[in-house]
């Protein structure tokens, strides 16, 4: 577990992309999505878990995911979120966009080192 100072607050709008990516392998419920994001980022990304829910509902409203009733691993009824075909398409679009952005920013940051 990383210390508090190592954590990074999420950029505006990136939470949506992370949720879409987390749901790519298959449906998941709210808590498991939060865990997955923390685990795969090695606990670097600091997500206020509560903010997950408004984000989920935003995605439902856009038609990128749907909510379904299901049973969780410890046999309790829970709401599961699943990507829609539209959401899958959106994920690839957003991923490409993100790569471009990150690449561009990285190039700018590192070019400075080279010139100096």
């Amino acid at each position, binding site marked *: 577990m990383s210390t508090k100072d190592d954590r990074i607050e999420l950029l505006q709008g990136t939470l949506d992309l992370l949720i879409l990516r987390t749901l790519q392998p298959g449906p998941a*419920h*709210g*808590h498991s999505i*939060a*865990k997955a994001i923390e685990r795969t980022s090695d606990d670097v990304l600091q997500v*206020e*878990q*509560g*903010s997950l*829910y*408004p984000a989920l*509902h*935003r995605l*439902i*409203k*856009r*038609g990128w995911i*749907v*909510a379904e009733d299901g049973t*969780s691993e410890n046999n*309790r009824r*829970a*709401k599961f979120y699943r990507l829609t075909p539209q959401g899958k398409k959106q994920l690839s679009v957003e991923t490409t966009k993100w790569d471009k952005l990150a690449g561009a920013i990285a190039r700018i940051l590192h070019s400075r080192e080279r010139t100096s």
Partner: protein
Amino acid sequence: MSPRRPDLDGLDQEIRDHLDAETQDNILRGMSEEDAHYAALRKFGNPAQVKEDVRGVWIPQWVDQLRQDLRDAARRIKRQPAFASLVILTLAIGIGLTTAVYGVVHAVLVRPLSVPDSERLVWLTAYDPVVDHEMFLGIDFVEWKTQAPSLESAVAYGFSEATFAGSGEAVRARVASVTDGFWELMGARPAIGRFPRADDQRPLVVSHRFFVDRLAGDRHVIGRPVTLDGEQATIVGVLPADSLWRLPVPSWRFGLTRRDPEMFRPLMLQPKPYPANQYNVLGIGKLTREATLSGLQAEVEAILARGTSGVGPPWDRLQARVRPLQDQIVGGSRLALRLLLGAVLVVLAITCANVANLLLARASARQREIALRMSVGGGPLRILRQLLFESMTFAVIGGVAGVALSYGLLSVVKQVMSDAVPRLAEATVDGYVLGFAAAISVATAFLFGLGPAVAMCRTDVQAVLKAGARHASASRGTIRAGRLVVSLQLALTLLLLAGAGLMLKSVSRMTAHPPGLHPRSCSRCASISPARGIANPSGGRTSPRRRSRAWALSAALAPWRSPPAATRRC
């Protein structure tokens, strides 16, 4: 296609499950149960805020908050009925007064005359600068009417009093004489009967009031012979009740014929040169669509200057005068009405200050509630809006009550002073007046609500919560706001008092300085006899009772120092 909103009721359970799962994870990591629970909560954030945000995705937040604010405001009013009714009553009086006065102002000054094309109607007269009043000779009117190209049409009228005798006692009636085309120009329709035709012999049209008061509303008077100043005449029509034109009176008769005429008779003006038409008349003209007031003024000045009417000295000193008819009718009351409107607006401002004070007095009691709301995440703006919404609720209820009050006020005012202000009878609470009432209600809500709300929002959460229920004193902010309101109130009250004082002083000066005679020892007495002693149409003679009454009054006046207690009209 818009996706279906998932069931939001399940959200509570979902969040609880989430927190449980997180707590379990934390326990597995070796935390105590309590620590695990709080760590999970910390990580999650404010559940209430999360729920609100989720709802906000689907329901525009303002709709939700509006509903909430409305519910809260209704609850608050229910919980403190005495306070709420005090506030609402205060507002109702303030708004009601202002609305009633605006109703009068709107009817008198804003709304056009209830005559077709009233904006094109002008008042025509000539003015004698030496004696300082109107002097409009019939022949001048005829010349203007026939020669001024800016006039589409024009009618002349004049006022007189005449003795009217029908089947009952003779009465003195205010009579207007009007030329051809008067009824068309005023767009009038008779309620009963018809308007005069060219072949009628001395036709009369009576006002609705005269018809009801003097003729007992008897429809059979139409066509029945009556006498006017002893001459046979016939009533051919009755005007509808709402035909009150307030024809402008000449300045020298002011006070005598200020009230609407009771009957109308035809006025014939021949296009013959002076001295054929020596009648002193007044005119109403209708401008053509292209014409302007100044254009007409120039035309009639030129006609007067030409002197073709044959009018010689001293009447060559007359000056043409043309004014918008509406200005002429309501002109005198304009300043007074504006002052009155200003005064009631000041009263309304004082009302707002009163209510603001009441709210501030409540503020200390509410500080704990507000501090609590802030501590659970209510932003100051949200709380400000909620407080303003409460004020708005008060204002709306007060406004509705105020409008009801203004209905009553208007009907009383109309009865008490219908003769004092022209067009007052037209005053009603119509759409414009309702709109005005709504506007001032909203404005008052801001006026009395904003100050206390801002003061309360500056509550020091920690201090208030620490102080606890035992001792919740007013914060510095509310005290300062309270002082401000009180000083504002004092200033406005002084303003009103000073204004009222000045007015009273004028009135007392008017009564203190004698007009050159002792009104107490004077009496105005008019004795009327129907038809100069000629038998009236119903076959009777001059009522002996009436004659004796007149004599009795003269006798009573004889001892100069002891006039009758009251001036009697006989």
